[in-house]
């Protein structure tokens, strides 16, 4: 367990816990307006002050954490679930027609930015947080598919894959047993990056009104609403901005720590066996 992993997991856990706690309790109701107390500075009652409607910012950050983290997590999940099998399939059938079809489909998806997909979905089902999850998730699929294919191709040329084939294992089994475990590093790193990007994308979608709809609080919406008041109430923008920044940083730290921990080379007792062959 590295220090990086501890710090990263601890802080991201804090945000996640705050989000979960908001389901049961928040210092104030985020939907209740109190115009009289608008732009209140930090106080015992409102730890982080209030916004232009007099809503408690701490409560909004807690609720927003729930929305943002849920959206990003689900989007990464959709991307991995869709992209990893596609990438493994393409790598296993490298050079074939199937490989081409899969990768050209990915290119097609890549051609549409998340924003465009979100607009498309909005046109069909109307704006919501789910809308942004699906849009960001679809955008993530080709990212993971390409990554997995690129990572798997050199692995397929290695002798241990050949050896598994000598043992009679098929492409699917080799992909799952040999290829995928060796891609965990890549997937963890890319996963944390996509998670961070997901939070930012959700903020972006909410900013243009395609994500979470009022009165649902989200970090992105808070940023969007604060932009007209940034001159006289900078904390409205600073606080959700800092929340996004911290979450992304923590997640990257946690990802790196996780990668190191999962690497068999860093595990305990790694060096014990060296130089012990019988003559």
């Amino acid at each position, binding site marked *: 367990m590295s220090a990086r992993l501890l710090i990263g997991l601890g802080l991201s856990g804090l945000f996640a816990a705050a989000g979960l706690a908001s389901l049961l309790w928040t210092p104030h109701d985020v939907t209740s307006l109190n115009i009289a107390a608008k732009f209140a500075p930090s106080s015992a009652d409102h730890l982080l002050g209030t916004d232009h409607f007099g809503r408690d910012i701490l409560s909004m950050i807690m609720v927003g954490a729930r929305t943002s983290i849920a959206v990003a997590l689900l989007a990464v999940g959709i991307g991995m679930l869709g992209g990893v099998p596609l990438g493994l399939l393409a790598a296993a059938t490298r050079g074939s027609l199937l490989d081409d079809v899969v990768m050209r489909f990915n290119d097609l998806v890549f051609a549409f930015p998340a924003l465009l997909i979100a607009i498309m979905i909005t046109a069909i089902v109307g704006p919501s947080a789910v809308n942004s999850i699906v849009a960001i998730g679809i955008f993530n699929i080709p990212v993971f598919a390409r990554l997995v294919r690129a990572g798997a191709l050199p692995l397929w040329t*290695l*002798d*241990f894959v*050949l*050896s*598994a*084939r*000598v*043992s*009679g*294992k098929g492409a699917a089994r080799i992909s799952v*047993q*040999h290829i995928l*475990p*060796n891609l*965990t590093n890549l997937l963890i790193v890319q996963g944390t990056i996509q998670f961070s990007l997901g939070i930012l994308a959700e903020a972006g979608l909410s900013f243009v009104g395609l994500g979470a709809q009022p009165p649902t609080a989200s970090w992105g919406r808070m940023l969007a609403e604060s932009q007209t008041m940034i001159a006289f109430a900078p904390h409205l923008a600073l606080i959700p901005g800092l929340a996004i920044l911290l979450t992304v940083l923590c997640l990257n730290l946690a990802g790196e720590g996780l990668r190191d921990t999962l690497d*068999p*080379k860093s*595990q305990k*007792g*790694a*060096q*014990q*066996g*060296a*130089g*012990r*062959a*019988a*003559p």
Partner: protein
Amino acid sequence: MTLLTVEGLSLSIHGTPILRDLSFGIEPGEILGVIGESGSGKSLTALSIMQLLPSGSQSRGRVLFAGQDLAAAAEPDLCAVRGRDIGMVFQEPMTALNPLQTIGQQVAETIRIHEGASPQQALERAEAVLEQCELPAAQVPLSRYPHQLSGGQRQRVVIAMAIAMRPRLLIADEATTALDVTTQAEILALLQRLVAEEGMALMLITHDLAVAASLADRILVMHEGAVVEQEPTPALLKARTHPHTQLLFDATDHRPDRQPAPTAAQTPAVGPLLRVQDVVQEYRLPRPHPLTGSGVRRAVDGVSLEIERGCCLALVGESGSGKSTLARAILGLEPIREGQIALGGRDVFADAGARAGMQAVFQDPYGSFNPRWRVSRLIAEPFFRLGRAARDEEIDEALVSVGLAPADKHKHIHAFSGGQRQRLALARALITRPDLIILDEAVSALDVSVRAQILDLLAQLAADFGLTYLFITHDLSVVRAIADNVAVMQAGKIVERGRTDAVFAGPESAYAARLLAAAPRLPAMGGGSRARTAVLQRVVRLLLAAGQQRPDAGHEGGSEEKLQQITGEERGHAPCHDRVVPTQHRAQPDQAGDIDHDITDQHRARRAQWAAIPAAFGEETDNAGREDEAEQVTTGRAHHVRKTNALFRGAGKDRQARRALCEVEQYRRHTKAPAKCHADDQHNQGLQGQWNRPERNADLRGNPQREAAEDGEANVADQAVFNGDERLRHGLSGHHVDGHCCSPELYFAAVFMHFAFRGSRSKVLEAAPTCANAWG
């Protein structure tokens, strides 16, 4: 003056000591061989000289290059030295070249940087340099990209880049390790020629003792970052004072004790274990143009072979000859186009059960294991085919049988060294008790000492479990050590097959002969009784052959002078060039066109000189056709050969014999070029290279006392062989043996010399048995 002096060089990287107190020097024009196993600090020594050290390294000591201390020099000064005064050639020719630049640009770059020449001038210079490296622009234009060249051509480009500025020191770091044997021989010959032509010093870093021994004037043996021995090559080969040097030698020449293959009588008549019949495998090439059809490359072209149960067949060939493709076909991994492959009578493609009887060990010890799995799971993988999990006892037993501990099964693969990984690979191959194990370059990536251990293990396992091996390799020394039978593969076809000793003794196909000739070999300088016997065998054979070819000449008086004159001259400007031109070129008429350009005037002159020798003795130069006759005589006199071998086996001093052999060999080669003896020529070329250098011979002649003090017999030999000791000769021509005056080898060498140059057939034929009797 010494060109490079390294004094007390120590290096540590992040606190880990890498080099310990190295001190050595290189003279201008000298070839220094640096040998050692991987991790002994050879490459970092080279990088320390260049001051191209990795980050986190701290070095102490002085690196004096032409009076300048490079260790203390500033970076701009070093940049001026690198490439201009010191050139470097790296191991991997593909990664040493920029794939996006043409070869001309890359060679010209060095010239532009150091001379500030205009691009046009630099390109012209580059063309000249490439031509010097045997890449004439007419055949390989400067506009080629690295990927359009073969491995050997790429390495020539890398060499051209290194020598473009005519550096005073050239460092070749494992420059031929990634190349095929034949290409390796060509590159080594090129390096040797360049060193001779340019008078530059060469620091030849290699793990291959044979390569170092065949080229280097002096050898430096490294072990764990320290110099353990540093001697002129012949002295090192002879003495090997340090145990580590001895270890390297033994490992290089190692042959495991193995039972001979069962003979036909011992094997029950069940047919061969593996039968490969007329197998054809093709690959579709990428279309050169969207509208044209795609071509097809035949990787395996009608190959048939059989392996008897309990035998080891070695499949030998260069890279791209289709060996590995065939192995994959046998393993049932890739469907074949035509033909049949059957293991124990069952077709491997139709019958998946047949495939369960085969396992494989691959080349790369680092890529053969999934780094995420533990050993227990790794080596149990073949049980998948049997549809059950491995039992713990089976895993333990497999580990123990390859010399590892059962406790190792809980570890991950990164905890094991390269040799241990190959043991694990063997354990994985063994665990299901297959009939056939295919070893695809299984020991090629290992250090010599580890390789020797693995070969021992293979022999032992074959005996314990009755294994049959298909051993795929490009390394002929390994073949000799392990295989009963050899099949030589070239361009998808098997060009020669037979028993190992038979193929090595007399290859029938030109390709096999070329492969054998190109393989670097340790000169047989006291290299164990086997090597010594081989040399002496040849002495005897040549002696008999020489006797056959030379009917009574009977003009001893007149030719004596001439002989001395010629050989004396020969020794006078001993021919650096002679050891430079690749022998196989000269010996092979079909390649004559290729090499015409590298026969220099000096060489022509030497040729003429040699051609004059037989004329001096009033003999015909055209001896072609007599070789066979001579061979027959040889066979007819086999008992003499055997006797003489027995005589010499324990003697331990064969230097004189070898020296004589060199002389005679020179003579023989220049009067005729028998196609059958390429391998031997190459071998002798190496010997000759060591003995025919002026400084050495001068040394030998000039210091008889030293030699005498060291070895009285050697002194006599020097006199007999080089100075024509009349007394000895007279004694010899009467084949009267003065027992106390010389050793058997010496006597023999002298006899050989004597008769080969001017002796008579009858006397030679008499001499062999007399000699044998004298000490038998």
